[in-house]
């Protein structure tokens, strides 16, 4: 099936929930995509087709919605899957990267030793907004010696300029749909 047709169906499967998690935000809900097996398969296939010949050795998924897409991509391209998590979820030794939010800050963690020099990494999340979380993910992977090849998301919110923020860190963005 042509990419344009698949992407059109993917976009139609998303639903928008107004004023979640707070007033003024139009939340892009991917759970309705997951309820359509054909559309969910097409989503994963589009990423797999793009990356299967790129020698990707690591797929890093950002908790928790990155976990919905990352593992299937990793399995299909023969890469390891590395979860990037909120603080104190990963047992054992971790490295942490702090990042700034609109108000305050947050932190992303990765297991020590999961990724090493020479690894070629893909970052996966359901959506990119300002790009703050993805930049933190990129820093974790680069600190461990990996080369971050690209960031892959189902949805991009262009007005929040995540693409530009990633570009300034040297990481391209691939997104299936724009909101």
């Amino acid at each position: 099936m042509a990419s344009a047709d698949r992407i059109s169906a993917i976009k139609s499967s998303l639903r928008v929930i107004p004023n979640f998690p707070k007033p003024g935000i139009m939340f892009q809900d991917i759970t309705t995509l997951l309820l359509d097996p054909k559309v969910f398969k097409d989503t994963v296939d589009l990423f797999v087709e793009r990356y299967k010949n790129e020698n990707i050795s690591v797929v890093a998924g950002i908790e928790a919605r990155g976990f919905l897409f990352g593992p299937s991509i990793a399995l299909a391209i023969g890469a390891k899957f590395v979860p990037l998590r909120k603080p104190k979820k990963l047992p054992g030794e971790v490295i942490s990267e702090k990042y700034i939010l609109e108000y305050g800050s947050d932190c992303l963690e990765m297991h020590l030793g999961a990724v090493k020099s020479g690894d070629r990494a893909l970052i996966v999340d359901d959506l990119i907004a300002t790009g703050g979380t993805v930049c933190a993910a990129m820093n974790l992977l680069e600190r461990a010696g990996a080369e971050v090849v690209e960031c892959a998301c189902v949805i991009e919110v262009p007005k929040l300029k995540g693409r530009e923020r990633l570009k300034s860190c040297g990481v391209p963005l691939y997104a299936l749909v724009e909101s």
Partner: protein
Amino acid sequence: MNSLKIFLNSDVVILNSQRSFSSGNFVNPLKLPSPSFPTKYHSISASTPPLTTTAAAAAASSHMAGPTSDDDRISRITSAIRVIPDFPKPGILFQDITTLLLDPVAFKDTIDLFVERYKDKDISVVAGVEARGFIFGPPIALAIGAKFVPMRKPNKLPGPVISEEYSLEYGTDKIEMHVGAVQTGDRALVIDDLIATGGTLCAAINLLERVGAQVVECACVIELPELKGRDRLGDKPLFVLVS
């Protein structure tokens, strides 16, 4: 939890010391020696009729043929799981599946073992419990053509939800599912990485049954038999790979 004290031996002391991962060999240094892992948790008794509720028991009893035997796949999966002592609190031996995810063959075998079991069972819904159920559930759902429904902690799912409260050792917790995701007549599988006391899985089963789905089975990578989760599930079957 007196039964867990059998693991507080010199092996655990070694695990607590600092190790260097510079060689990139992430899996081996922290795991317990693999032959001790399945036998300390569960002995497959030859005198008990096999219920085929663990893949290890099924493999032992039925000599399944195939390119890689079930025994070999289970063995590799078991070896890939690492145990972290005293996480999240002292006395708990945490079963860490992240090392399994770093072994593409073992991770694929894990998914394949579930898919082989469920692909001809007309499963229409795979429900995965946040967050580690999100890692195993979607690949299974995709392979068997089922929809995937995330079961989440409160206030994560946008839009209308139904909630189920469940007991913890101290206090209660809640999981939520989207209204309309599952309908009467849906045949459901519940997935999580591990079953301990079974509290979370029971809550997940209740959510699915409240909307009219039939819960066919619960499936986990790991079971901790001493915590009797299987009993707590009552008449709902449980299938695990490592026990």
